[in-house]
């Protein structure tokens, strides 16, 4: 049993998990060396939000929608950078082969978690509010509303590090997706002798749809 605070917190978590999916769509922008500007980031999130809604709310089978979502994730989310962040200090300890295995599995699990619940995103609306420069990118603040739910504030952290604007974090009502994930991995590693291979095995199980916790 959990207290009211957890309850609120967990409903934010729902939003977080769901909205990770609202991962927008980047048209193949030309590589830019410069940092992403707030206008660029706002434009990017607005555009990709519309593409997302088109993909989710249109006609077509669940499989088609999941495929469309995966396309959006691949183009608009800097999965590699998120994966590196989530592994934290253990990234340096991993061998190159482990790093590659980890990145591949992280990608598969992320896509699976998002596309597996495609029905949940029906009717979601996203309104872009403003953009704020942060040291690691530009945070675009949006208001996301799901049917029968109070509006949620969701910030999208956009970075240009990969050469085009891409999402590197989703912060729903103050809870950061990548930070939460990193804390989960760090705790798991701490209970498994800080062995990166143990984490990789757990991710393999998750990617194959088995319980890994």
């Amino acid at each position: 049993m959990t207290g009211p605070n957890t309850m609120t917190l967990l409903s934010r978590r729902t939003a977080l998990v769901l909205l990770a999916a609202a991962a927008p769509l980047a048209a193949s922008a030309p590589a830019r060396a410069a940092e992403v500007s707030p206008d660029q980031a706002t434009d990017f999130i607005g555009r990709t939000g519309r593409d997302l809604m088109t993909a989710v709310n249109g006609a077509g089978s669940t499989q088609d929608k999941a495929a469309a979502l995966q396309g959006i994730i691949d183009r608009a989310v800097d999965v590699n950078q998120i994966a590196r962040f989530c592994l934290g200090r253990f990234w340096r300890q991993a061998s190159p082969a482990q790093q590659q295995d980890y990145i591949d599995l992280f990608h598969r699990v992320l896509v699976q978690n998002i596309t597996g619940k495609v029905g949940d995103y029906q009717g979601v609306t996203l309104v872009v509010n403003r953009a704020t420069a942060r040291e690691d990118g530009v945070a675009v603040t949006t208001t996301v509303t799901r049917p029968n739910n109070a509006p949620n504030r969701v910030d999208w952290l956009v970075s240009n590090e990969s050469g085009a604007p891409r999402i590197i974090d989703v912060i729903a009502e103050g809870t950061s997706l990548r930070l939460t994930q990193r804390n989960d991995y760090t705790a798991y590693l701490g209970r498994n002798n800080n062995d990166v291979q143990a984490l990789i095995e757990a991710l393999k199980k998750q990617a194959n749809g088995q319980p890994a916790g």
Partner: protein
Amino acid sequence: MPPNDCRAASPPTRPAPLARRMLPMLLCGLALATLAACATPPPASDPDAVADFRETNDPIEPTNRVFYAVNNGIDTVLLRPVATAYRDVVPEAVRSHVHSFLVNLGNPVQLINDVLEAKPRRAGDTLMRLVVNTTFGIGGIFDVATDWGWPDHENDGGMTFAVWGLGDGPYLFLPILGPSSPRDAAGFASDFAVSPFSWIGVGTVAQALSYTKTAASAVDARANVIDALDKITSQALDPYATIRSLYRQHRDSQIEDLRADNRRTVPAWFPAAAAPGPTPAPGATKP
């Protein structure tokens, strides 16, 4: 307080007038204090691990994990099935009114906290919500205040203590109550002490109503997060650590929003010359 100081981990208990009713809570604190097992800090030779340990700030993690498992057990056999049945049987519209009713019952405590935090606009919102929803909303069954421009916000004793400058301290996972900290546990106790429902009536009926309110709140809250919690337990490698992380981030964000909410109390239409503070922007309206 230092993260690896086990003695600091027992929740502070405040002298409260309702000692008899607060006994269960005091016992919880006592149980934690006596049962608390310390997590073994990593060796100083591994600075990264030490940094992780300090950042996690969960010195009685082994004990916390025991209570986490106990709560999960209670949840599995009791709360989750009840909440699931409630969600599946009762129509959404009815559940929404039940929720509004329960939220309205919490408004007196919220108002007290708004005032203690010196946030007049928040206090005004809560006061108007209480008055409007209790009357026009028929005892709080309908949330008309939100549509009329007095939206709800989150507040509790832990946030009040935070605004007063109290740090959250080490992580606590409390029996029944779930994720917490010494500050938030003290806030919970203070909310209980100031709640009118702890004071009015001492007979069997009042007791029964009070327990019903608590049980209904638990079912209402649990029913709203069935899918979210299922997702965490199925997707996280370490659900305990994930909940710890989410709880802390969420609390920090609530407190940050609270600190940043310094809306003016002078209405925008009031003559600017007579109003202290900055001149309202042209066309400014009540948010």
